[in-house]
């Protein structure tokens, strides 16, 4: 007897997938008891084993086992037939399988079972379409016939969307998944990856079409160059079917096999990447041969590409030409390709070669009829060459230009492609576009000797309505104190666009500057006319500007020695500012600029009332803002500045950010570092968007601590960049570079924020025992022998010698000048040079004295002959 426990043991083994062990156990049991129950258990175990083999694709083994069981256990034939039927799926077995479906009396359960078998196992649509057991009009036959036609169509050539509609196949049909497969194949051939994947995802994993899902997915993956993924079948992959099965691999090879030329080209690409010279030459030969056979129309282009790559890789040209079976055609297309290749390398030497080849290209292209010699296309090439030249270091380019000039003189060659000025000029003549002019002017601004003004004039001559050159010419004239010319440019700007903020900002400054200049040159009537014009401007009514107008009137009246009118105007300044100290300082600043020393004389600070002294920081800030707007230097007596610095702590809370900024500027400009430092400390404490600006001002106050100054300026530049304030970032970077244009050290935004925190905490000016923030970790390490020795690094004796030598050439400081004073002087000189101040003006401002030998006599203007 077969006990339930024994049977349960076998079935447990089956459920765990241990079919072989289950089969052995079932055989033992049946051998021992030989009952119908034990035979049924054994046959069940055989069926499970057969299904497992079929699931693994071992069809031969499964079929052999079916035959064996059929012979040994005849009672199991019906079950085994059902198992074997779909595996064959031939017409005979299909007829037997599907015959019941033609019977109208077939029960629902049996119909569902049969349809499940069709969905899961039937792969031969033509056999199904021809199944004689079903009537010709049966839905399954008509659907199979339509699907078969579509399947053949999509695998044989492009199909239309209408051909993929397949209305004969309903959504509920056992063949519905075939419709999805047909569409997936069509989308695959169209290269519509997204639609193909969508269709594949919708295929039922238990259906027969699912056997192709993995293979199709692997072919889709070929586009992204991933290897075949055997395990991946996706949501609807056929279980157990390996994508790398022989049939799938054969399909993939047949469908996606690359042409021989592509395979050869890929090999050549690999050889270029690995720089294997002999391999490259060998492959060039076979690639050229293959291309000549497969695609002769593209052979010349291919040879040109190969030649260019070999030229850049510095391969032996003769060997390459021999391998290609002759040289490539050196036409415009070749030149363009070669130039592009050389400019991609970023090597200055290659850049020069690229410029020369682009010039060649321009001429060759014009000869070949690509474009006319003087066309906009030619302008584009000239502009491009100019851009490439700007990437070459300036000294190297100058040297190259000089040697090219010498060579050109001998050979008579046109070398204009080496001169950015000529290239920009040519570009702007051929295609006068603001972008080209703007690039030309930016280039000129970096050159010595007022080249930008020349370019601005050329720009304005061609494009009268462009504002940028006029603004430049106006600023240039103002810097030269040619106020008449500058006002002429201003009038032009007013006609073009009087509402531009940069024009409005300049208008007040320019007219006030013109008044001061005329007063200085004693052209007082003219000056008074300008004042009337200035007073009528809307800009002159804003803020403290009416006081400036009144101060200018006082200046002119003082020039006329009209004491009453002067006093009246001074009283106006007082009234308008509501602050006697501020009025006195404003008059002093304006009068000093016009060299009217009498009017500019400030009384002693002790004459101010205690209230006036208490508000001195605010008064100084207001005057500082006005002086900044007018670009006037703030020369005030030291006791006034010292008093303002002394009073600052008590009044700092009442000052606005603009006033703090002005005070920091005043302190820095007048050498009152205490005031400047205290103003930056308060400004930094306020936080917000002005932090970067105050950190920049802090840097400027730190002349005595060059390292800290550089770090603060660098951090200010990073913070300004983050706020998109590129103008501040530029100014901060200039300070970070120092007077000698040192190389910038790297600083991250996080490090910049760390510097900001440190500087906010450093509220006291360094000195007198106050500890300075230590930024040693942010600065590049000093490489002098002493520092290297202190860090425990090896020191080469010759290095020590070098550094000792440098000491011999150190600058001798003038007697009485400390290194700190020297540093401050150099910083101030660098700043003055950046502002465009002349050396004479800088020297007289620094020394505050007429040059030795008494006052210089005004130079007479030479008469033009």
């Amino acid at each position, binding site marked *: 007897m077969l006990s339930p426990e024994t049977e349960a043991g076998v079935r447990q083994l089956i459920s765990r997938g241990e079919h072989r062990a289950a089969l052995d156990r079932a055989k033992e049991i049946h051998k021992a008891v030989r009952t119908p129950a034990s035979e049924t258990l054994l046959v069940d175990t055989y069926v499970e084993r057969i299904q497992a083999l079929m699931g693994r694709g071992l*069809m031969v083994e499964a079929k052999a086992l079916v035959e064996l069981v059929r012979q040994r256990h005849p009672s199991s034939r019906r079950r085994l037939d059902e198992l074997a039927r779909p*595996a064959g799926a031939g017409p005979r077995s299909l007829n037997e399988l599907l015959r019941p479906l033609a019977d109208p009396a077939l029960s629902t359960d049996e119909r569902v079972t049969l349809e499940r078998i069709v969905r899961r196992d039937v*792969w*031969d649509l033509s056999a199904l379409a021809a199944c004689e057991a079903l009537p010709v009009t049966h839905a399954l036959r008509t659907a199979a016939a339509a699907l078969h036609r579509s*399947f*053949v169509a999509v*695998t*044989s*050539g492009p199909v239309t969307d209408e051909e993929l509609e397949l209305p004969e196949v309903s959504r509920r049909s056992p063949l519905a998944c075939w419709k999805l497969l047909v569409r997936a*194949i069509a989308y*695959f*051939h169209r*290269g519509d990856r997204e639609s193909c994947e969508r269709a594949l995802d919708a295929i039922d994993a238990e259906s*027969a079409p699912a*056997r*192709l899902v993995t*293979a199709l997915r692997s*072919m889709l993956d*070929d*586009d992204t160059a991933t290897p075949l993924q055997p395990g991946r079948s996706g949501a609807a992959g*056929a279980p157990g*079917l390996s994508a790398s*099965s*022989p*049939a*799938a691999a*054969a*399909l993939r090879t*047949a*469908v*996606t*096999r*690359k*042409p021989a*030329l*592509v395979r050869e*080209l*890929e090999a050549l*690409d690999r050889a270029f990447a690995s720089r294997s010279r002999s391999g490259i030459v060998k492959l060039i030969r076979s690639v050229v041969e293959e*291309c000549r056979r497969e695609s002769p129309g*593209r052979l010349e*282009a*291919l040879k040109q*590409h*190969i030649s*260019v*790559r070999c030229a850049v890789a510095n391969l032996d040209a003769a060997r390459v030409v021999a391998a290609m079976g002759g040289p490539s055609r050196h036409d415009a*297309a070749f030149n*363009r*390709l070669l130039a*592009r*290749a050389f400019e*991609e390398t970023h090597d200055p030497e290659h850049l020069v070669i690229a410029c020369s080849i682009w010039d060649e290209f321009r001429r060759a292209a014009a000869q070949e009829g690509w474009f006319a010699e003087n066309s*906009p*296309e030619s302008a*584009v*090439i000239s502009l*491009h060459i100019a851009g490439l030249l700007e990437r070459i270091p300036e000294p190297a380019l100058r040297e190259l230009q000089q040697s090219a000039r010498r060579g050109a003189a001998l050979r008579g060659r046109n070398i204009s492609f080496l001169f950015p000025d000529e290239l920009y000029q040519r570009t702007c003549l051929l*295609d006068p*576009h603001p972008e080209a002019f703007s690039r030309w002017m930016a280039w000129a601004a970096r050159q010595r000797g007022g080249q930008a003004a020349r370019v601005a004039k050329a720009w304005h001559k061609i494009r009268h309505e462009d504002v940028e050159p006029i603004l430049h010419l106006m600023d240039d004239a103002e810097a030269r104190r040619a106020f008449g010319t500058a006002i002429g440019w201003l009038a032009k700007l007013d006609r073009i666009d009087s509402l531009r903020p940069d024009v409005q900002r300049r208008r007040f400054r320019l007219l006030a500057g013109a008044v001061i200049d005329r007063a200085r040159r004693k052209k007082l009537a003219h000056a008074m006319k300008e004042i009337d014009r200035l007073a009528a401007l809307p800009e002159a009514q804003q803020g403290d500007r009416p006081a400036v107008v009144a101060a200018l009137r006082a200046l002119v009246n003082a020039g006329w020695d009209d004491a009453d009118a002067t006093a009246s105007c001074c009283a106006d300044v007082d009234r308008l500012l509501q602050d006697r100290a501020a009025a006195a300082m404003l008059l002093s600043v304006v009068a000093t600029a016009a060299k009217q020393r009498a009017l500019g004389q400030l009384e002693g600070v002790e004459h101010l009332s205690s209230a006036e002294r208490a508000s001195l920081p605010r008064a100084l800030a207001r005057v500082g803002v006005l002086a900044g707007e007018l670009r006037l230097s703030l020369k005030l007596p030291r006791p006034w500045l010292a008093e303002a610095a002394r009073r600052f702590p008590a009044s700092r809370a009442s000052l606005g950010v603009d006033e703090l900024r002005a005070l920091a500027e005043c302190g820095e400009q007048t050498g009152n570092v205490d005031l400047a430092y205290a103003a930056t400390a308060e400004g930094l404490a306020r936080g917000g968007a002005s932090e970067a600006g105050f950190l920049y001002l802090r840097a400027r106050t730190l002349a005595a601590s060059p390292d800290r100054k550089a770090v603060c300026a660098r951090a200010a530049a990073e913070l300004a960049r983050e706020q998109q304030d590129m103008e501040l970032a530029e100014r901060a970077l200039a300070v970070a570079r120092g007077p000698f244009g040192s190389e910038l050290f790297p600083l991250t935004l996080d490090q910049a924020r760390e510097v900001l925190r440190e500087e906010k905490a450093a509220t006291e000016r360094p000195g007198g025992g106050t500890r300075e923030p230590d930024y040693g970790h942010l600065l590049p390490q000093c490489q002098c022998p002493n520092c290297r020795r202190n860090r425990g690094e090896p020191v080469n004796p010759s290095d020590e010698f070098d550094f000792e030598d440098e000491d011999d050439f150190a600058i001798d400081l003038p007697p009485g000048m400390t290194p700190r004073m020297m540093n401050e002087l150099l910083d101030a000189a660098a700043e003055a040079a950046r502002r465009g101040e002349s050396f004479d003006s800088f020297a007289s401002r620094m020394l505050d004295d007429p040059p030795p030998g008494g006052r210089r006599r005004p130079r007479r203007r030479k008469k033009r002959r």
Partner: protein
Amino acid sequence: MMNPTDVLGVSPDASDEEIRAAYLRKVRECSPDRAPEQFERVRDAYEMLRDPRRRRRQRLFAADPISPLAVLFAGGTRPRRFVGPGPWLEVLKSK
């Protein structure tokens, strides 16, 4: 960036009208809410081609000396051959 003429599917010498028509067709195919990335590519390509100066520059500097030769001379994707139903049926049969 891909060649803008390839993105819009126009020839390098296409006229303004052809470029605009191709752009409108592409926008219909890949609207911003359905395929935002593709739409951006199409828009960028159109922006470049509608400006004659940018188009001129793009045309002059289109030569590519860096891309692999296999890509330049055989396109980016592998060829797909129509091989008939046979090899496909072999995979279906192979369960």
